[in-house]
């Protein structure tokens, strides 16, 4: 299935990436080139093959549900683009 400008627009929106309208066609072409190269995976017989989600065969460890580190808002906020009174300042979320 070919990727067209409308698909790129939709995917860019999902990825929250602003792409100018005039870039969409060339991006579609680039992505088509990569995806059609990837299509060769359909040659591989994967019937009954368990998908590999991790190369580490161990079960993910659990730890006790306790606070290990925290209570230091100034460290958390130290790289904030904008902060006031111990809070992140973000654009208006609810109209």
């Amino acid at each position, binding site marked *: 299935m070919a990727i067209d400008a409308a698909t790129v627009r939709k995917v860019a929106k999902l990825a929250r990436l602003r792409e100018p309208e005039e870039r969409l066609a060339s991006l579609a072409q680039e992505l088509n080139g990569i995806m059609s190269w990837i299509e060769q995976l359909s040659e*591989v017989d994967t019937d009954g093959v368990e998908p590999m989600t991790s*190369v*580490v065969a161990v079960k993910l460890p659990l730890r006790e549900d306790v606070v290990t580190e925290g209570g230091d808002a100034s460290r958390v906020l130290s790289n904030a*683009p904008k902060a006031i009174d111990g809070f992140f300042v973000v654009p208006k979320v609810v109209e």
Partner: protein
Amino acid sequence: MSALTKLTLKAAIDGLKSKAFSAVEITKAHIDAIEAARGLNAFVLETPDQALTMAKASDERLARGEGGDLEGAPLGIKDLFCTQGVRSTAASKILGNFIPTYESTVTSKLWGQGAVMLGKLNLDEFAMGSSNETSAFGPVINPWRRAGETTALTPGGSSGGSAAATAADLCLAATATDTGGSIRQPAAFTGTVGIKPTYGRCSRWGIVAFASSLDQAGPIAKTVEDAAIMLRAMSGHDAKDSTSLPVDVPDFASFVGRSVKGLRIGVPKEYRVDGMPPEIEKLWADGIAWLKDAGCDIVEVSLPHTKYALPAYYIVAPAEASSNLARYDGMRYGLRAGGPSLTDVYEQSRAQGFGEEVKRRILIGTYVLSAGYYDAYYLKAQKVRRRIADDFDQAWQTCDALLTPTAPSAAFGLGERSDDPIAMYLNDIFTVTTNLAGLPGLSLPAGLDAQGLPLGLQLIGRALDEGTLFSLAGALEKAAGFTAKADKWW
């Protein structure tokens, strides 16, 4: 004291212990070398004051007869590792002036052993690239040049800064990371030794995430023994990384120099690709002959799904990257642009902060994970990944390690391949399989091509069997007798 920068890590550690020179002296020698080599663009941030403070502390410990395994040794740190109080960028504009309030586990282990930080090393943006050309700071220049030419060559990527700085004697060794070949291909392009250990050997905590199921840290160093010393210091279980393996860390250096007699070396026939330069074919044949002379048995093996590794990688890695990079939203750290609406800030911050290759991979990743395509792409790629891992399991029935070339070419010119993403992706054709299977892979320099550029051989081992790789690499290093260095032009 420029001779101090020519030392191997091992010789430097020994010299510091015996007080032949001080940590401050060897650190100053490296700071001078870095200043004189700014044309290479290997460092994105130099930290000379911090280096001298750390070196002084090392000298005090050495004077008391104390000190760790790396006491006083000046190292370079890939700028993908978060360093407390020191700007960490992943070579991306989106992290802006990000100053971590914490230290990555790997670097904190190095400082715990007394190592000295010289600064942060350049890389492809978010480690996505094979030529260093995607860095927001501009590419690193390879210290190596073709004989009689001044064309600027790539040091490889993504750990191009780590490789170039080590090759040009700007640091004794460097940290690096490898998601599809980012330690081994730059090592091959610069005549250095690099190892990507078994997935889970080194903690990923505090390393900027690219593709979490593939990312592994490892060292780039001047010799096989140096790489072994570095890897030991970087490895170990960490409760802060749930995929970190709770296993003991061997003394890897003790494997270097051991006999390799009787080891069975697999030569995978699928790694003979069309268009491979005859010099790489020859180097591979030399490597096979050297290991045979050292008493190894050579066996031909088949890894039938090799050709599907890169296409599978270019689903898995972008999918994980699109998820990992969703955190860069302009709210809590890094670049914030656009406005006034929330969506506009998200979209503008990301559009302005990410470079073209990173955006391309986010788009691919978002596409393959989007509704209706997940099974066709992501699930399919995970199944192919299993097939690739099974190929290796099959191979281990008849051999103990594999020998292959590291990369399909020597270092190429900057700009020569940047127009065609797939041509660039093919750089990782021999290295990416081990990331998908989680296996250790080591690259060491073994010869020069007709134009005088270094070429690398790769050893691939069983999971957690880095020791065997170090023994084999030691034997190859001895047989190859590779001592060439780039002629200093910078």
